[in-house]
């Protein structure tokens, strides 16, 4: 099974080379989608041996992931892994995320920061933002997963073909969850470790996600 790892990157010159060198031995192809970085992320990604795609205009993480998916599908990927460029995920856990698909136990697998493994999540994120996001997902979309905003996931080529990510910004996390539940895919969560270098998505970002989801719903 050909496993492609899609890494969206925006101004990640500090970490991108290390991330690629760690991920490369574990998958068949690493696809970095440079979202018009202002630093030399693109050059470093090429030098590190990844397939580097370049967005001539900054379009957001969701847009970059969809570009990566489109590339992977065009190049006969069987499984597509979404991974972050900032070094907060552990590359060795790619195997854990991919395994349920290889075993044909799941069609899409989400990494969760709230299962067995320990993640140094900021207090407000753990006790305020994430419970609220979980509640919104459960009430409005019927989604019952432990991690509502995980960016570490793996999916089969068929799922990637059907889930066309339409939210260019951070709302893509919710969009993928919503579509996975709507299409009744076999879903599994696996524990992952996240190393926080900075806070990440803020409370205001949550509101932006809700607003983006509503607009997308209206213009459909």
């Amino acid at each position, binding site marked *: 099974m050909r496993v492609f790892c899609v890494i969206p990157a925006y101004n990640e010159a500090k970490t991108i080379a290390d991330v690629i060198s760690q991920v490369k031995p574990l998958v068949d192809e690493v696809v970095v989608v440079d979202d018009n970085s202002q630093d030399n992320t693109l050059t470093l990604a090429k030098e590190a041996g990844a397939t580097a795609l370049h967005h001539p205009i900054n379009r957001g993480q969701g847009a970059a992931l969809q570009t990566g998916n489109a590339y992977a599908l065009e190049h006969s990927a069987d499984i597509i892994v979404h991974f972050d460029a900032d070094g907060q995920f552990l590359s060795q856990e790619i195997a854990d995320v991919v395994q349920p698909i290889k075993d044909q136990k799941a069609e899409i697998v989400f990494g969760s920061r709230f299962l067995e493994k320990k993640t140094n999540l900021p207090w407000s994120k753990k006790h305020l933002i994430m419970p609220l996001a979980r509640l919104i997902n459960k009430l409005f979309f019927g989604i019952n997963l432990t991690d509502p905003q995980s960016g570490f996931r793996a999916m089969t080529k068929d799922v990637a073909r059907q889930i066309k990510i339409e939210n260019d910004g951070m709302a893509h996390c919710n969009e993928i969850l919503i579509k996975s539940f709507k299409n009744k895919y076999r879903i599994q969560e696996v524990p992952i470790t996240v190393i926080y270098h900075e806070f990440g998505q803020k409370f205001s970002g949550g509101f932006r996600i809700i607003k983006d989801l509503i607009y997308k719903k209206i*213009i459909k």
Partner: protein
Amino acid sequence: MIQQAVALLIIAFFLVRLFQQKKKQQISKNEFTFWLIFWLLAGLAIGFIKTIDQVVAQLGFSGSGINFLFYLAVMILFYFLFKMRLKIVKLEKNITDLTREMSLRK
């Protein structure tokens, strides 16, 4: 009376600008027609504000005609704002599709 005159002067100013834009071909024929009708109706509403007062009172509203026009204007503005936002979202989608196409075809 003075307020009505000021409002009509403002409308006249926008009408002059509208004709200037049309002359310089800065706006399309449809756009020109729309704004021309809009400003003429606004002028009529200001001119017949007393009649509107009576109509509003007959409809059972306690406010005056000018209040009614104001509420209507706010509602129309919100509608246009919303329409514009939707148009921007669609444009953004097209930009993303183009960007993706360019990055994949390189």
